[in-house]
């Protein structure tokens, strides 16, 4: 992907709070960056798999699944730390109230699925005690408002939007269920990373720095993020309170918990291992 010799790095994303570090990235002297916005994870993964984009901030489970299927990609950094909430209907007071109800998640291959699983197990139930429904995040607040589902777990800012619309409230934050969880990650195609090691390094380190900019959560950060999300400022501020972009390293312990959960949830029989899939070399260089 070059033009006048200067590489263009194409990164796919969905307009969520979780992809915030990307919003602070700018073109440099040795590469240009092009952010490609998608409207659903599935379309984004199609583009990544087909090599039409070089990388993406994506649900890590979808990327692991693609890796398992033989797509040569690797995770080089987290998208964010924490920052997911379980949004429930006003009458839900505890996990017990959710039993037998429908719970919406954005995708089967998502950490949100794992959160639901863990939340239920921690309360002594199993995932089969609720009715899981996959749906587009944008439709979750109205589903909750019309009592089609009793709760939803999804990438921000949709939890925050639900709360601000008054259709739901926060039952848990993700760190209450699974501290230091892994959710979205910056996943890059290996062929891109290997094409020019210097650019790759530079790019990932800029990504980490951008995370720190987002972490400020100040006026400037809010404006910058909202130029991508276009939601109300107070909703975004709420959303940012739940999230951190400080350390975007993918930890092995968390990754192993995730692998195990994926097997438990029958999302995968043989998920890629930490060694195969995670490449911390770039982000380590920054720290």
């Amino acid at each position, binding site marked *: 992907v070059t033009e006048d010799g200067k590489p263009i790095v194409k990164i796919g994303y969905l307009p969520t709070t979780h992809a915030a570090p990307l919003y602070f990235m700018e073109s440099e002297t040795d590469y240009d960056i092009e952010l490609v916005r998608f409207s659903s*994870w*599935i379309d984004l*993964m*199609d583009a990544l*798999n*087909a090599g039409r984009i070089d990388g993406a901030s994506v649900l890590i489970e*979808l990327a692991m*699944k*693609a890796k398992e*299927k*033989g*797509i040569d990609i690797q995770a080089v950094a987290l998208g964010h730390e924490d920052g997911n909430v379980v949004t429930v209907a006003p009458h839900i007071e505890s996990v017990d109230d959710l039993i037998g109800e*429908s719970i*919406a998640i954005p*995708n*089967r*291959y998502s950490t949100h699925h794992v959160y639901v699983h863990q939340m239920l197990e921690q309360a002594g139930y199993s995932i089969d005690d609720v009715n*899981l*429904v*996959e*749906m*587009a995040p*944008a*439709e979750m607040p*109205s*589903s909750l*408002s*019309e009592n*089609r*589902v009793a709760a939803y777990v999804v990438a921000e800012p949709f939890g925050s939007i639900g709360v601000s619309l008054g259709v739901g409230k926060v039952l848990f934050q993700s760190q209450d269920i699974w501290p230091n969880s892994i959710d979205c990650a910056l996943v890059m195609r290996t062929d891109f990373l290997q094409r020019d090691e210097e650019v790759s390094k530079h790019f990932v380190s800029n990504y980490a720095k951008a995370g720190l900019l987002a972490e400020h959560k100040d006026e400037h950060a809010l404006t910058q993020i909202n130029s991508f999300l276009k939601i109300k400022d107070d909703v975004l501020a709420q959303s940012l309170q739940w999230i951190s972009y400080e350390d975007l390293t993918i930890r092995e312990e968390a990754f192993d918990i995730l692998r195990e959960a994926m097997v438990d949830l029958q999302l995968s029989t043989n998920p890629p291992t930490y060694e195969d899939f995670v490449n911390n070399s770039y982000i380590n260089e920054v720290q």
Partner: protein
Amino acid sequence: MKNKWISAFIGFAAVIIIWQLVIIIGDYPEALLPGPAAVFAKWWSLVVNGTLFEHISISLYRFTLGYVSAALLAIILGLFLGRLPKVWAIIDPVVQVIRPVSPIAWSPFIVLWFGIGNMPAIVIIFIAAFFPVLLATVAAVNRIEPTYLKVAANFELSQKDLMWKIILPAAFPAIGSGLHMAIGSAWIFLVAGEMIGAQSGLGYLIVDARNALDLDTVLAAIVTIGVIGLALDHLLRFVEAGVKRMWTGKMM
């Protein structure tokens, strides 16, 4: 008849050969473009473990409900609106503006009103089928040979007889082609309909398999959808022929 089957066989054989050639020449990763053999193997495994039939039956259930209710409502409304040009002049522009909007664009409102699961799929299929049938019916009623209306007036038919003995049979061939058009486009929207919170059906199967980058399954489902779509069209032809026989009076 036999020739027809041979031709169809040649056609499908050619498609499979071209497909295999594309894979060999294009050198695509198996994960991104599975070959015919892999797709057939997957299809067979879905048949054997029964999941395919489950998905097919739930999809057909949703489709039948959505399509049949749309067709009946559209035909009945259309027969009356076709006879009331002043009312139609008011409704027509609204319909013309609503029709070209994709059911995908409506989905936030469909969720709001109809929730998730079966209903959105049924509603989307309903929408996709309703407008073509309505427009075809109104047009058909408007284009009825004036001669038939003249004959009806000459023999002093009642309003009810006029509707049942003249207008419906006279308009039926044109309504029929509307029904065919609608069965095609409604079936196309099955996939879109089953993306909204459904946890089963052929559309869900495709979306779910796409998530898992399981393109064997996607293609197996595509082929299944195509074949069923074709079968539905033929089924409709039978129904049409049956309806037409109703008023020929060929029973003496």
